[in-house]
């Protein structure tokens, strides 16, 4: 596991340049351009289970879900930030990418610190310090548990269909 550390206001153009937004939508098309204008080494070196640590307002800017799809596809375990922009936050719920808002954990991190995240327990360990984060409301975990919004929607449609019968 590796920690990728970024600053404040990492926007959607840095995460996935707008010029590709109408030509790339599958994970295979997205991955080579992930974080292209922020950190060209990211897409080549990122590994399953890696963690991104960032400052305030991560994901601000456009309604652009490619970075979320891409980060989920390369296996990023969680993005931990001081805060997130709202459309990005919703997109992450919809794709099942774990976002954790925990400014204390971000501030406690030093180059080389060991980080462990236990999503179910709501706990982040940074070096020798443990931080907790609140569980998400039931309406939101239901989407994640279904395997993302589209899977959740499919279930809902099937249920509606049954009611009609």
């Amino acid at each position: 596991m590796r920690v990728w550390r970024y600053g404040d206001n990492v926007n959607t153009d840095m995460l996935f340049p707008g010029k590709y937004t109408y030509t790339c939508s599958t994970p295979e098309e997205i991955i080579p351009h992930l974080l292209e204008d922020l950190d060209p080494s990211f897409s080549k070196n990122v590994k399953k289970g890696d963690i991104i640590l960032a400052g305030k307002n991560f994901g601000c800017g456009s309604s652009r879900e490619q970075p979320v799809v891409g980060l989920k596809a390369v296996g990023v375990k969680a993005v931990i930030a001081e805060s997130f922009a709202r459309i990005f936050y919703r997109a992450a719920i919809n794709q099942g990418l774990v976002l954790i808002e925990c400014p204390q954990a971000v501030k406690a991190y030093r180059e080389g610190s060991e980080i462990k995240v236990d999503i179910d327990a709501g706990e982040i360990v940074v070096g020798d310090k443990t931080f907790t984060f609140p569980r998400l409301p039931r309406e939101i975990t239901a989407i994640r548990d279904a395997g993302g919004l589209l899977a959740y929607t499919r279930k809902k449609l099937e249920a509606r269909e049954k009611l009609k019968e």
Partner: protein
Amino acid sequence: MGMTFAEKILAKYSNTKELSPGEIVTVHPDHLLTHDNTAAIIRKIEPELKKYGVYSKSLSVIVLDHVVPAASEKTALNHKLVREFVKEYGIVNFFDVGVGVCHQVVVEMGLALPGKLLLGSDSHTCSYGAVGAFSSGIDRTEAASLLLTGETWLKVPDSVKMMLNGKLSKGVFAKDVVLHIIGDVSASGVNYCSVEYHGDVEQFSVDDRFTICNMGVEMGAKNSVFFVDNITKKYLVSIGVSSSYDAVYSDEDAFYSRELEYNLSDIVPVVACPHTVDNVKPVSEVADVDIQQCLIGTCTNGRLSDFKVAAEILKGKKVHPDVRLLILPASRRIYEDALKKGVIETLIKAGGIVLPPGCGPCLGAHQGVLAPGERCLSTANRNFKGRMGCKEAEIYLASPATVAASALTGRITDPREVM
């Protein structure tokens, strides 16, 4: 305890009496806006569409605007797919290439009415607060789900009250006001909040309110709103809205998580410097910076009043030989009006290049992409690195007056010097 605008709208759309911030409700929005990204959205749900169809033919508003006319085979194919979808499912509100930028079209066609709830797979969907609607951006997957089910969840936001007091000075515009506020509160200053504008707002036309609400997302807002008044009503009459609507106002005793006050007479012409929208400085501090491209237009400042201001400054003059001036009307209707009023002629004679109504160079896909080392002064809403197609270029944001004045001198210029 009274309720804020956001609380009232979300209560109305979830059939709930009272709501407080943090609660999650299920809503059925009046409209769902999607644009060129409709292609990617419908590709996600092909089997479901075949099986269940769309939830409602009148829910969707689809506008082709982002890369228009198509810039490549791939974008042309996207447009084609969208047109086929529209025909097959009988989508009522479809606006093909050339009608305008989606947000302008939604408002101009009378689809965003006071008291309505709209969602859209574009972050600047927050613009419709200009006419008293509640509107907010979502992502593509959520738009796909809405197409099928007609519903989604929303969290009731905290509300922030912005008091705008006093009167703007000459040469200072709505764009300067909103940039000033973003510079003050920061790019995440009102994250997840509903922003209400109060105070001396009668000096702001619907065009001005559009500019201010459009940039709400650049301070993190979920939605922004100006309440319906005579100015809104007149505007709605002017665009031929005949249907009735129910304006929603916040209560006097509503609770705000924050109240901010701005004295408008203190605000001066400003620019947002690279590469964040909250890096705001008075024009005087960056007045020596030379520029190679100027853009007047986009959903932020591509309306008739914007071009009129620019034309007044440029009339009978020529833009600086080192500057390319791009003119991007936000809609065909605006383009026509500007032609009739002679505004377009003035801008062309001054050296302006008129682009077809749409997003044009705003998102860096085509038409006016920048080269490394170049600087653009633009009336758009974002100056992120790489936004105009080149990560080694710089984008500055300002009002149409500042952009027009700067086009003449070739460096960032205070419009008061030439007005």
